């Protein structure tokens, strides 16, 4: 349980931040933290704490998968650095691009087909899969 001591602040914050389905498991010298945050700021807070305890994520002793709760119909903001976000025919960068959403544009979630690729629709009617890392539930 040594890792749970090292990352105590992270685990304590996760368990008091309303993370649903929270799992904290230590296996083969890796601490696995999984769950669904109610909003993006909770997820960001946990990542900030992780980065404070293990600067630049160098130790390789945590795998933290914190999803942000969002269901079909939810509004998503495109949080790319500056560029447009590709909307693709299927879930994968090898899939053809069927549309684009602008930086900071608000689009609509249809469904989460998996953790990485969400099926979305723009106000202009373009529909397809976008990379979830660049989408922030509003």
């Amino acid at each position, binding site marked *: 349980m040594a890792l749970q001591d090292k990352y105590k602040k992270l685990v304590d914050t996760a368990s008091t931040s309303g993370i649903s389905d929270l799992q904290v498991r230590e296996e083969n010298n*890796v601490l696995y933290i999984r769950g669904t945050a109610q909003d993006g700021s909770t997820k960001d807070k946990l990542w900030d704490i992780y980065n404070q305890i293990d600067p630049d994520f160098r130790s*390789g002793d945590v795998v933290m998968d914190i999803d942000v709760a969002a269901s079909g119909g939810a509004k998503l903001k495109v949080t790319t650095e500056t560029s447009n976000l590709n909307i693709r025919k299927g879930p994968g960068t090898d899939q053809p691009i069927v549309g684009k959403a602008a930086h900071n544009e608000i689009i609509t979630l249809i469904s989460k087909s998996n953790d990485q690729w969400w099926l979305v629709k723009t106000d202009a009617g373009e529909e397809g899969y976008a*990379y979830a890392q660049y989408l922030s539930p509003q």
Partner: protein
Amino acid sequence: MKFTKQFIAILVLFTLSFAGCKPKDADLQTTVQEKINDMSDASGVTVAVNDGVATLSGEVQDAATKDAAGKVAEDVSGIKSVVNNTTVAAPMAPVTITNDDALIQGVTDATKDYPGVAAVVNNGEITLTGTIERSKLPNLMQSLNSLNPKKITNNLTIK
């Protein structure tokens, strides 16, 4: 009059014996609970004692702990019998790790927008080499962590 006196005497005796019994259960309960609390892994067990019968409830990690808690209660003098209602928790399933084929696909997608970053997947472990700006590192790490790998080794040079 004699009858009334006798009745009162019986009543007093009865009350005394009743009062004498109750604190005993409470004392026994405290003793058993303390002994169980002294065990290293029985923190979820609670004790109730009624007429010298100890009832254990709560959840423990395994059957051995359940039996040990029952034995601890039995060994307390004054306990006539033990009803062991503690339940054994279902064993935790191992952490699910994404298989390498799905990981490689996921890592390709996650690193696409980071041209300086190279990633290798081997037996569930992702190893990162190359260069990245510090401000971009958390986003990349979030993407990679959400793939559910076994481990991520970050050998990136930070600009």
